[in-house]
């Protein structure tokens, strides 16, 4: 069982995410991967994850600007594979550019969250989003 896969290269963001997850009850299980390439390998069971059948998360939270494959490429690949086509996928980015938003939705993102600057706002947004999407995901029985 894995609740959240968070794809994020900024260690401060990752640190704050860990902190926020720890404050939630119950605490969701999560995995943080620092690059788009690793995330694609993980979700599509390829590269170093080949043959390991890693657990699929209930929610993918993804930053857009990532080293290697960008967030957009991850969304595209996830949506192209039958195994991961219906995974809830939420973009979590500091970009307010409408072009980025449009592109993310066009590629199949379920939601787009703009990273707030203040910790209190991040906290409120993150807890709400995680709560909502995990409930959605758990109530969905394929």
């Amino acid at each position, binding site marked *: 069982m894995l609740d959240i896969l968070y794809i994020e290269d*900024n260690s*401060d*963001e990752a640190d*704050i995410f860990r*902190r926020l997850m720890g404050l939630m009850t119950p605490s969701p299980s999560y995995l943080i991967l620092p690059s788009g390439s690793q995330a694609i390998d993980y979700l599509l069971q390829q590269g170093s994850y080949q043959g390991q059948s890693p657990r699929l998360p209930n929610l993918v939270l993804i930053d857009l*600007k990532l080293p290697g494959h960008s967030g957009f490429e991850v969304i595209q690949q996830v949506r192209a594979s039958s195994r991961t086509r219906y995974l809830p996928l939420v973009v979590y980015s*500091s*970009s307010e550019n409408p072009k980025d938003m449009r592109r993310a939705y066009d590629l199949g993102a379920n939601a787009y969250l703009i*990273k707030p*600057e*203040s*910790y*209190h706002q*991040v906290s409120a947004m993150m807890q709400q989003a995680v709560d909502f999407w995990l409930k959605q995901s758990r109530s969905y029985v394929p």
Partner: protein
Amino acid sequence: MGVQASMSISLLYRGELWGLIACHHYNAPRYIDYQARQSIKLISQLLSTVLEIRKEDEETAYTAQLNTYEQALHQQMQDDWDVVQGLTKHPITFLDLTTATGAALLFEGKLHLLGDTPSSNEVMGIIEWIHSTTTESVFQTDQLPNLYAPAEEFRTKAAGLLLLVLSRQMNEYLLWFKPEQIQEVAWGGNPEKPVVMNPQGEIRLSPRQSFDKWTQLVRNKAQPWQPMEVTQALKLREDLLQVVAQKANQIRALNEQLRFSNEELEAFSYTVTHELRSPLSSIKRYTEIYQDDYGAQLDESAKAIFDKISKASDRMSMLIRTIMQYSKVGSGGLTLKVLPMRELLNQLREELLAGEANRDLTIDIGATPNLEGDQTMVIQVFSNLLSNAVKYSRLVPQARVSVQGNQRGQEVIYSVSDNGIGIDMKQVGKVFELFQRLDSASSYEGYGVGLAIVKRIMNRHQGKVWFETFPHQITTFYVSFPTHTS
């Protein structure tokens, strides 16, 4: 005249009759013998040869002169970097390139006339007619009135026409005119004098009779265009089109540079947003976390220090945002449409009043003619002007802000007035500069970006912005948007 005997000697030029020597004898009939006639014939042949040589010399000299003129015109266009100026504003104009007496240039939508020409309307009529009758790029005639009836009216100016198409698409033409030839000739006698029949009912061959026939022939006709004139005109067209193409290339290159620097700017603002904002967010968030987790253990002075860190990072993040806003106004396209100004202004008014609930502030909105602009940018203009008006009238007991629109000719002018502190005219140069703030404004929050953005947006709309100020009485900012009549 009492002429008893006459003899004429033909002068030939290139096998054609060029002129003649007429000899008259008055006292009595006179017979010229064969020998004398032979020597006279020799004289005529000699004269004809000399004539040919002289004419050829003249032609060579004339061709050389035209060549010099053509080169001069080319140089002038290059030096002035302007076709119209190069062709019309120097001692040598394109009229000198042919024997024409009038010339016209239709270029970039403007008609330029030189010398003796038909009126502007008549010239435009000729061009329209050419446009609809021929697709040739060169058109020449020495009898325009016979092809184009309206030319009868101005045949004294343009019986001959040489026209070069510069661009059919852009409707650009070069024209030269020659007058009807009959107008140029000084007659040796009265052309009205009737031909007289002799008592035997015979009509004798006489110069008067052939004269009459000749006038019939030259009606509506001008001197034909010489091959060298057409050659020079064609050469001129090549030079002109070259200058036009060079200018177009230069503009294209400049556009390319501009596009490149716009892309650079966009890449730069992206870097600024991402690379600067994320460490700043970290500073901000960890400060909050520290205050959350250890706030209870901090004394007042430590709390004040954390407060300063928070405020400084807030300020920095606002600065980054405003830089982005400012650069965003310069890049990206404009989406022009007619904007519902009353609605937009009312909304801005509500938002501003909501944030200023504790003051005596009224915002009056007068006439609101619609204007054409990019919605996001126009809202930004009025938002910046109105929030300045609200901000700088904060210390006035009864703050009055008013917005008034006015459609005037080809522009829509809006004014935003307030009765606040106003602007020190000594610092007027700073008003629209980025990050410049006036002394009087230093105690008010702000970054010196709002009016710089207004100016930039108005520039992008080909509009204007200006102001007038009577400090502590009334200060008014004006923005003028051009109306697009399309």
